[in-house]
């Protein structure tokens, strides 16, 4: 898709997404919009997609593995929640969350990437559990298992985004901006370097691509997206405890990116959609949802490793090839 087409499609999608939860009957249109819960789910999808975009950069573009994204989301969430309680404005917390997780990403990645490829996976695994332990144990700071309550919604020019719809639009704008930033990065020579080091790190190195540095950048950037997603997550749910930031959810982030389509730009959105909506659809079989999800993922890896986006692309190409 050319750049111009992408921009047009993006703008159309943005407008559509802005209108989906809105009540349009006041404008004479027979569309009542979504209720509070529906809007909440939509917002959750966007926040999850931001974190998933980060994982996609690390896994899909740079070809690495991260099992710590939920921990980075947690760091952003707790940072923002605690800062908020001390009167720090949201904008500042958001930026700080991103910076902090970026720096931690560099610190984690630097030693792990000196060694064999899979070591980053294990280091992130260990980091994930360590973070969760800290979240759970440091009760004075994080509220421990009881968590932190009454997290305030951010203020935009002294207008507090208490309504679900308003907060949704706020998150939508931020998500759109972050998507554009990632799109820019991926289309730049950096994106080309990322693809190179995923496809053929040996050759890339011999062509002057500093494989270690680019991998580190991808990892730190992707983790920062996680931190910023967490910063949005805290005010969304208004109450956080350690459970969504444990190892399990980190594994689910990896799964959702691959289900959506690893390395495909829209993959994280599709994957996050599946991850957020599947529990809703499978509500009847609530306890079995993870089991079904796991089985579906395994089948997908064998039959359609390009994920759902890959599957769609494949079907489109087949339709085109047929006369």
């Amino acid at each position, binding site marked *: 898709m050319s750049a111009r087409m992408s921009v047009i499609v993006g703008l159309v999608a943005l407008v559509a997404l802005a209108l989906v939860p809105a009540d349009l009957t006041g404008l004479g249109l027979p569309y009542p919009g979504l209720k509070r819960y529906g809007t909440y789910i939509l917002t959750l999808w966007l926040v999850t997609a931001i974190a998933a975009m980060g994982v996609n950069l690390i896994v899909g573009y740079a070809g690495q*593995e991260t099992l710590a994204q939920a921990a980075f989301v947690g760091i952003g969430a707790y940072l923002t929640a605690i800062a908020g309680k001390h009167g720090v404005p949201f904008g500042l917390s958001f930026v700080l969350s991103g910076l902090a997780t970026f720096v931690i990403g560099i610190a984690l990645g630097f*030693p792990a990437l000196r060694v064999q490829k899979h070591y980053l996976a*294990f280091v992130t*695994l*260990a980091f994930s559990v360590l973070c969760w*332990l800290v979240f759970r144990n440091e009760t004075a700071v994080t509220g421990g298992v009881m968590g932190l309550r009454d997290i305030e919604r951010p203020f935009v020019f002294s207008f507090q985004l208490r309504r679900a719809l308003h907060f949704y639009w706020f998150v939508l704008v931020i998500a759109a901006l972050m998507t554009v930033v990632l799109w820019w990065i991926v289309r730049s020579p950096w994106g080309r370097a990322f693809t190179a080091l995923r496809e053929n790190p040996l050759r890339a190195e011999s062509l002057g691509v500093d494989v270690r540095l680019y991998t580190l950048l991808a990892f730190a950037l992707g983790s920062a997206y996680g931190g910023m997603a967490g910063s949005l997550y805290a005010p969304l749910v208004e109450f956080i405890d350690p459970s969504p930031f444990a190892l399990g959810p980190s594994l689910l982030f990896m799964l959702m990116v*691959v289900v959506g389509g690893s390395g495909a730009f829209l993959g994280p959105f599709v994957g996050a959609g599946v991850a957020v909506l599947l529990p809703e659809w499978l509500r009847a079989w609530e306890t079995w949802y993870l089991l079904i999800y796991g*089985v579906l993922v395994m089948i997908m890896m064998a039959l359609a490793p390009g994920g759902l986006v890959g599957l769609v692309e494949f079907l489109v190409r087949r339709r085109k090839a047929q006369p």
Partner: protein
Amino acid sequence: MTDLLQLVIAGLATGGIYALAAIGFTLLWQTSQTINFAQGEFVMVPAFFSLAAMKLGLPFLPALLVAVLVSMLLLGVAFRYVVVGPLLHRGVLPLVISTIALSIILKETVKDFYSAEAQVFPTLLPDRVVTLLPGVAVSLAQIGVLAVSLVTIGGLQWFLGGTRTGRQMQATAQNPGVARILGVPVERMILYTFVINAGLAAMASILISPIYLAKFSNGETLGLVAFVAAIVGGFNQVRGAIAGGLLIGVLDNLAASYVSTAYRQAIPLILLVLVILFRPQGLLGRREERAV
């Protein structure tokens, strides 16, 4: 001092179990480049095979045997041919994702089909306390566990070093390509490693479940320990996995006494980070030739 000795011995006992889990994991990686993220669940599930068999009326010992055999079949042979085989040629990521998905499947299956509650697991070894040296009291069970682990490991080492098949497996582990050229039936050797891994995991399961109770969520911690032990010891070799497992067992036990229980789990993790920072080839590993 005697307290310390007691803790160390107890630590070695659990360490031996961790070593079993770590050895299989290392072997899989060496022979077929398979990182089994479901290794922890492989150590969790066999206990439930036994429990299910006993529910169906089997007495304890046959149930254990059934568990080991079923594990070797399902977590060894079936795992190799149904999960790993078809995915190897698709690259590393699909395989990693599939083992992650498998870990979720195993965990949820036990939780949904057996129980979400921790289950008591019987033990063959009497719980009597014995005084080894003046002031050092150890339970017979601990000595028994350590003995079983050591015997199993010893048996494995003898097999690998002293039998023809074992040496062929070692050759495959060191360099599958060269082994194939030398006429080693590499595919069969790889199958053996999968079966051995399942067997070792089953043994570890049987030994550890009496101590920590059998619960569907055990896989997470056990898997983590297996990974850390393998890396800390030196990812390239079985000796490393043994050393790593024992070390972590001892550290974990010491931590339980001297460090707050809340952060007990953190000790092996911190060890992992330190090793990767300062000695990435592991304690027993050799410096890797630079690949890039």
